[in-house]
């Protein structure tokens, strides 16, 4: 039977005293070539910039990026093979920041060299980051081909920058370098979301993403500062050894406890949790490869990585992990409910990403970093798969992504592979029993349900409900889009007529549907899109291998051991919880989870395939009943979160800025600046009537001058002399 057991003390404060045994780091100067993992994408970014400056009009930037990323992936594999799960290695690359001040009494120094901290968590993350990065770059080389010569170079430059920054973030050896990477991925995300810069909605989405990330970054920066103030170092190795030595006397009682909350804020901003999640759906304005790479697989997991890496710090406050769990659980539920009511396929997958990220945070919060890490791994693959299939649909149907306007695409020639790969992704997302995601989600929910804290148990049940909702909305999309009668409408981004004739794979479809714009022929994806899709699908299936290994062959759970050898060791134990309703926790989770998944798929089948009008009937039924009338519109309007933020923040800021503008114009500009200019004019005008040419004016001036002098003489000079 499955035998998961929680290694840590099953006491109430989650991982409070049990930071776990973190192996001390070892200096490894011979691994300097690992710096190329960051260096290659950076070099590719530089070369793409040169291509841009030289106005290259071919697919050269794509080749450069793909080669660089594959190189990074190969290097990562070599590094993994060399190090495996050994002690963490610190590879110093170059001296970056180092200063010291003070005198002999209070000597203080700050040092943040640009160095890499390579332990199993790093390798674990880098494997799927570089792997997926390369595959998606290959995919994008075809996907973006309509922009060759126009924005192609910019796109691949952005992707290279992103991967360099992500690598920096994951492989950093101290918090400052992590912050550098953090900001770098934010920047790359901004650049790539705003790729279609002539679309105002894209520009707004890019700004929103960047600004919301910034709010989280503030928390992260403050957290890093507090860490330095309290522990005197920002370096991981030193920090972990200091923490293991025991609780420190901080500079104030509240400071150490505040650190996890601040770090948490940063993580929530980057990983789109409540309250900073509204940027992620808007980020779908970017090209689909961007959505797949950045906003599904890699960047949004940076928050999870941060918490996993800094896991020992989260023991500093007893409520820190509970907060993470609650935020994660609630976000998962809320995002899933919104996903039920969206019509844009990419938006559904975006909310799904938010929801699954919520699961990961829930896992971190209830004390299983193993579950969270495993879910990150599996989620990266199947979510990338889903996004890329959506992208293939968009690519073929001129940008059409509305599920109300597409149907039965699996019967459209050229799209069969895409449809079945999407089915695979959907099944994984719904956590079909024995899929990879089933195991990862199961681990998390078991830890929650089996926990001794009743609020975690509640979150566990909520997570199971969310799983059912997830299955429903996932298959709502699949049944609507890929199954049923064939019907499609082209989107707005039609290629020119001559593009179609060049494409050998495009063929007219029999029974061309209604609503097709002038002579529209959908063209299926070519090999550059198909091969990455197939590879990612294989990866998604293979991601379940560690679990199969344990389940069927009593082997070692590779993911678990990867995480156990890192700083997140505290939560890497096998999950074992209390009995729930008489059954063991994991059994309960498996049964209820599977049931929820099947029920969800069943409801989706009924409402969206078997009888499509059922969806409308359900909707009007909900609106008819007084208690549920608000449900459909609220969900469609995404719980009005954007509107609430608009009122809470943007309106006061807008009002404040107008007030300040008014102040600036009238007081500073008008009164001070112009006023100072007007003073000489006014003074001149004061005396001007004396000089109008009439004799008496001059006489008056003479008299006035005489009076002044006389006054001075008599009053001051004579009085002074007595």
């Amino acid at each position, binding site marked *: 039977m499955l035998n998961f057991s929680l290694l840590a003390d099953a006491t109430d404060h989650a991982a409070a005293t049990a930071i776990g045994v973190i192996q001390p780091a070892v200096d490894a100067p011979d691994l300097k070539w690992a710096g190329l993992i960051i260096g290659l994408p950076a070099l590719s970014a530089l070369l793409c910039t040169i291509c841009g400056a030289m106005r290259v009009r071919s697919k050269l930037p794509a080749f450069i990026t793909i080669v660089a990323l594959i190189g990074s992936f190969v290097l990562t594999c070599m590094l993994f093979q060399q190090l495996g799960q050994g002690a963490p290695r610190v590879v110093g690359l170059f001296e970056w920041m180092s200063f010291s001040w003070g005198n002999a009494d209070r000597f203080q120094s700050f040092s943040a060299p640009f160095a890499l901290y390579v332990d199993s968590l790093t390798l674990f993350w880098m494997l799927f980051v570089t792997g997926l990065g390369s595959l998606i770059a290959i995919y994008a080389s075809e996907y973006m081909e309509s922009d060759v010569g126009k924005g192609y170079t910019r796109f691949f430059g952005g992707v290279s920058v992103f991967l360099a920054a992500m690598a920096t973030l994951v492989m950093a050896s101290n918090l400052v370098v992590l912050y550098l990477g953090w900001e770098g991925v934010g920047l790359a995300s901004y650049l790539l979301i705003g790729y279609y810069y002539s679309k105002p909605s894209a520009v707004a989405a890019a700004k929103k993403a960047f600004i919301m990330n910034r709010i989280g970054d503030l928390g992260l920066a403050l957290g890093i500062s507090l860490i330095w103030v309290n522990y005197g170092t920002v370096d991981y190795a030193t920090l972990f050894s200091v923490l293991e030595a025991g609780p420190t006397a901080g500079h104030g009682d509240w400071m150490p406890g505040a650190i996890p909350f601040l770090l948490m804020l940063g993580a929530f901003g980057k990983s789109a949790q409540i309250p900073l999640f509204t940027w992620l759906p808007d980020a779908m304005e970017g090209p689909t490869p961007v959505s797949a790479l950045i906003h599904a697989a890699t960047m949004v997991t940076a928050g999870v990585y941060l918490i996993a890496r800094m896991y020992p710090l989260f023991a500093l406050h007893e409520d820190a992990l509970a907060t993470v769990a609650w935020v994660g659980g609630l976000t998962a539920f809320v995002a899933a409910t919104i996903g039920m009511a969206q019509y844009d396929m990419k938006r559904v997958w975006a909310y799904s990403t938010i929801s699954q990220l919520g699961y990961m945070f829930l896992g971190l919060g209830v004390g299983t970093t193993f579950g969270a890490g495993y879910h990150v791994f599996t989620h990266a693959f199947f979510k990338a798969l889903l996004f890329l299939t959506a992208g293939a649909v968009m690519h073929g149907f001129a940008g059409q992504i509305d599920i109300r306007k597409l149907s039965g695409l699996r019967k459209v020639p050229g799209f069969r592979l895409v449809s079945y790969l999407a089915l695979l992704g959907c099944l994984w997302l719904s956590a079909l029993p024995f899929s990879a995601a089933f195991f990862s989600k199961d681990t998390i929910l078991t830890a929650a349900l089996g926990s001794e804290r009743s609020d975690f148990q509640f979150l566990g049940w909520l997570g199971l409900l969310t799983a059912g909702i997830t299955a429903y909305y996932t298959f709502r999309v699949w049944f609507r889009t890929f199954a049923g009668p064939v019907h499609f409408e082209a989107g707005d981004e039609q290629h020119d007529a001559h593009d179609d004739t060049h494409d050998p794979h495009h063929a007219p479809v029999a029974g061309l549907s209604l609503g097709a714009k002038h002579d529209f022929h959908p063209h299926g994806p070519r090999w550059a899109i198909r091969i990455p899709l197939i590879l990612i699908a294989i990866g998604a299936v293979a991601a379940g291998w560690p679990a199969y290994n344990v389940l069927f062959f009593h082997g070692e759970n590779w993911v678990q051991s990867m995480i156990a050898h890192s700083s997140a060791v505290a939560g890497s134990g096998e999950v074992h919880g209390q009995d729930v309703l008489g059954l063991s926790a994991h059994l309960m989770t498996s049964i209820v989870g599977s049931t929820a998944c099947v029920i969800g798929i069943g409801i989706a089948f009924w409402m969206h395939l078997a009888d499509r009008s059922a969806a409308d009937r359900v909707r009007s039924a909900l609106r008819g009943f007084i208690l549920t009338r608000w449900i459909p519109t609220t969900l469609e309007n995404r719980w009005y979160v954007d509107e609430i933020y608009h009122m809470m923040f943007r309106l006061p800021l807008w009002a404040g800025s107008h007030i300040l503008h008014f102040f600036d114009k009238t007081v500073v500009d008008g009164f001070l600046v112009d006023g100072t200019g007007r003073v000489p004019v006014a003074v001149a005008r004061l005396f*001007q009537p004396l000089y109008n040419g*009439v004799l008496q004016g001059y*006489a008056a001036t003479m008299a006035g001058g005489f009076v002044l002098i006389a006054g001075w003489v008599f009053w001051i000079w004579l009085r002074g002399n007595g």
Partner: protein
Amino acid sequence: MTELLATYDASSVNAALLTSSVLFGIGLVGFLSRRNMIVMFLCTELMFQGAALAMIAFGRVHGNPDGQTFVIFILTIAAAEAALALGLVVLLYRRRETLDSEAWSELKEC
């Protein structure tokens, strides 16, 4: 007549000084505010009056005939100035047919 004023009469001196100041001030005001050129010069004569009165008063204070001597010269100068000023005024009047001093305001700054 010196017996009449054997002792220093402070009140006459003070009254005379006050009158001279006021005459001077009024003359100044008149000069600045009247537009008729001849009356303007009449007001300068008023200022002369004030000055002369002050001279006499201070001469009395110090017991000198110097004050009165200087008043003779004031008279001389006043006469010369009146003659020339009036001659100029007549010339100006001939040019513009008016005694308004604002008719001669071409040297303005704006």
